């Protein structure tokens, strides 16, 4: 087997970009914020490890097959005047060999695969944080049931603590979606009339990208989200402030007051929820602490005044098929509404 070292080299070369990506760490995450090569949970490391194992074996087999093929094609090319080749019609021993060798290689992948199938779908521990995830067209609702029976409702930004198992209850009341934050692990579908489960334990604080993984209609591409992993204390603080009703405008701040009037007494109230106001619509995302969110319109835009103005001018232009219609607001109205929405810290 003199060719073996050369073959190993070519394996390494072919695998290099992906291996580099896998080892790239923070820089890689900055470039590709939704990458699967930045696992931060045991679940994600397990899937990543299986990927690497199957990649290395696959590239080794693939390079070997292609190398043999190219060599045979060159070695046995037609030469003028050459006699007709020897007519071989098979070789039982060889054929048995190349039945068994792939079987062994597959077994190397199969054993950890089955182990991982079970280890990534465990029973949630008793102290797990339960979050209900409800897929909508095209945004996410996250509900945190509290021991006192209340439920904290937020949208498009899921907050979790590190060091504690998170148990997602995945539901849909419309079409199918899939919850997918690659840094936390694989995706799982949200299926109408069923409850699905996804269990992972975040280890590293940070803000991670996620996106709907199952085609769900017109704006499937624009159904994104952020996952924010806090320290345990940070998560408690977030939860406490999230449970509070919406901030009241200062009596001196006339723009915010006018904005509140427009939002809570206008068309918005039909669909949106703002705790602490009469607004109790359940069609659209909760806006109770809208001003604190990092993004708007389900992860597609940074949450700032300029983007919010663009959104309010004509939502379906930014998100085709959006249930929020163009309300034909004046620029002045938009200014007041933006002021109020941004005050909802």
């Amino acid at each position, binding site marked *: 087997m003199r060719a073996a070292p050369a073959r190993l080299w070519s394996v390494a070369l072919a695998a290099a970009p992906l291996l580099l990506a896998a080892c790239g760490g923070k820089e890689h995450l900055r470039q590709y914020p939704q990458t699967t090569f930045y696992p931060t949970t045991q679940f994600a490391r397990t899937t990543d490890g299986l990927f690497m194992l199957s990649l290395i074996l696959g590239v080794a087999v693939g390079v070997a097959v292609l190398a043999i093929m190219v060599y045979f094609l060159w070695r046995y090319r037609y030469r003028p005047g050459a006699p007709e080749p020897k007519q071989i019609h098979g070789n039982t021993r060889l*054929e048995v060999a190349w039945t068994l060798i792939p079987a062994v290689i597959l077994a190397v992948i199969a054993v950890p695969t089955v182990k991982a199938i079970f280890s990534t779908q465990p029973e949630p521990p008793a102290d797990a944080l339960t979050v209900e995830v409800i897929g909508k067209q095209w945004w996410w609702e996250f509900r945190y049931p509290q021991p006192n029976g209340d439920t904290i409702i937020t949208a498009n930004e899921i907050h979790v603590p590190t060091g504690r198992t998170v148990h997602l209850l995945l539901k849909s009341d419309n079409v199918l979606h899939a919850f997918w934050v690659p840094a936390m692990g694989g995706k799982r579908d949200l299926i109408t009339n069923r409850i699905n489960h996804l269990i992972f334990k975040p280890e590293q604080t940070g803000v991670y990208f996620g996106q709907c993984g199952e085609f769900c209609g017109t704006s499937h591409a624009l159904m994104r989200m952020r996952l924010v992993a806090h320290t345990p204390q940070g998560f408690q603080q977030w939860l406490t402030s999230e449970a509070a009703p919406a901030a009241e405008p200062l009596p001196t701040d006339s723009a915010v007051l006018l904005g509140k009037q427009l939002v809570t007494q206008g068309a918005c109230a039909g669909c949106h929820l703002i705790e602490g106001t009469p607004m109790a619509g359940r069609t659209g995302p909760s806006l109770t602490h809208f001003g604190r969110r990092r993004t708007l319109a389900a992860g597609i835009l940074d949450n700032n005044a300029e983007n919010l103005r663009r959104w309010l001018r004509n939502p379906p232009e930014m998100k085709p098929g959006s249930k929020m219609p163009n309300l034909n607001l004046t620029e002045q109205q938009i200014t007041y509404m933006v002021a109020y929405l941004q005050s909802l810290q």
Partner: protein
Amino acid sequence: MSSTATVAAPRPVAAHHAEPTGLWSWITTVDHKRIGIMYGVTAFVWFLVAGIEALMIRVQLFVPNNHFVSAETYNSLFTMHALTMIFGALMPLTAAFFNFIVPLQVGARDVAFPRLNALSYWLFLFGGIFLNVGWVFKAAPDAGWFAYAPLTIEAWAPGLHMDFYVLGLQVLGLSSIIASLNFIITIINLRAPGMRLMRMPIFTWMTLITSVLIVTAMAVFTIAITELMFDRVFGTNFFNTVDAGADPLLWQHLFWMFGHPEVYILIIPIMGMVSEVLPTFSRKPLFGYNVMVFSGVLIGWLGWGVWSHHMFATGMGPIADSFFALSTMLIAIPTGIKIFNWLGTIYGGSVRFTTAMLFSVGFIAMFTIGGISGVMHSSAPSDLQQTDTYFVVAHIHYVFFGGTVMGLWSAMYYWYPKVFGRLLDEKMGKAHFWLTMVGMNLTFFPMHFVGMFGMPRRTWTYGPEQGFTIWNQVETIGSFIIALATLIFAVNLFTAWKRGRVAGPNPWGAATLEWSIPSPPPVYNFREIPVVHSRMPLWEGDPTKAAGIPHGRAEEETEQVTLGGAALAEVGDVHDENKMSAHDLGIHLPPPSFWPIVLAFGITLIFVGLIFRQLTGAMHSLWYLMIAGVAITVLSIYAWAFEPGH
């Protein structure tokens, strides 16, 4: 290739067979060869249409937040790209070869049911047009070819989009089932004397396996879309989740029970084609014929037990996940055997690099890559990161484009001279091959990366912050290189038809029966039905090859080899008899019939009637068109049954 002797004949003999010509003769034809050509031409047009849809997808994704097409149009584009490629281009292209080549390979004068064969073509033509009529009404199907419930029920998919899907595919499915039954019966019953099953050419074997898969898989799909049609048209409750408690996973199980065998329906015929091309241009018999046959059977069989590997993310639970992960891995074994046996065929050969051979070799390389990423998906937990991303898009295109399409192009270069009597141009062919290889790898390889970097599939756009831009730009450039290659191919196909080099009966020195008769073959194929003594009848008389031909029995080897009543050495000369019509030679051929096209029209009309319920908003128009369709169907079946056969 100077090495592949071209028989010097003045011109192809097509005009000499006293065949009727003109449009009417094509509309009423029941000749498997003409039907094969019609399948091929129609499917190639659909291939170009689906290719243009793919280019529009690639233009849309060239830059982030692009507005080249709207979200709605994009969703229709990727849905119709898949449907048109699978049901309009790839399956019918394989059917074109089944039609033209298989009866010749088994030494038959036609398929078992010639008029039924015509019916399946006309249903394919009408069904394909019907499916695409949605574009005219701005209502092309838009929920993906997989059409997951409940996105497809009335509540979430109002309008006609998915009606075109359920009804158009009914017509196309009917066409496939009818055609496949015909091929199964042809292969089982019409083989020439002496052609035992294990002497059949490998392409015929793979056609048989594929046809069995089509009949069984299409039946499941027919049930699924009938149920969906009932939900949409009559308000039943198979997939309706709105206050009705249906389980959307029922659709997924039904769809993939069809959908996964469908993958093998698209690749097994190609394995057969490549297994014909490699031995011919390596000048050696196929390595391990028996194992090749049985691994094909095994792939088809195992293909029935893996469907839920498309559903690992649905939360089936660890037991089901494990079963489908392991069964999927098992399929890699017979697939690997095939790849190694192809290498074994090249080993020790004398390889001629014709364009057909290059595409077959390219097929092995690209299909191997697609197979390997397939094994990577089979690891269920790992697949949770891959499923519904561009990694899977890369995988399916390595299998369907690198595999199916490249294999089909190989078959085109290989059998074109048999079909039209002229060779495709090799210079253009090589440009076509190399541009295709470069283009396809530029287009589809980066999809592996961008998928693992988090890009979901079926997304009409992406944000600049997601980091997908540069990879998408490389992919788009690659797709236009494929387009250029395909353009060269189309020019080659067209110009060679009238101006290509004359091929003669056996330009490649191949071994199977179709090469024993003139190119293009006379209407009756074989003047006298050949008697077959081995797997490679045309290599039989050649002393350097005889030793390598298995299953030749001593007593048979001493018999005279008969092909068309002539000694082997004489076969291939254009005799005066070939200018005689079937009638002059006393060969009975089924007469032409226009009832197949009328029947196909009637059946299609029934389904068109169902769709117009919403266009007019009134139910009476449904009955109007449907009753007309039923009347035409009944009438033409009756007329068909009593049509004289002589």
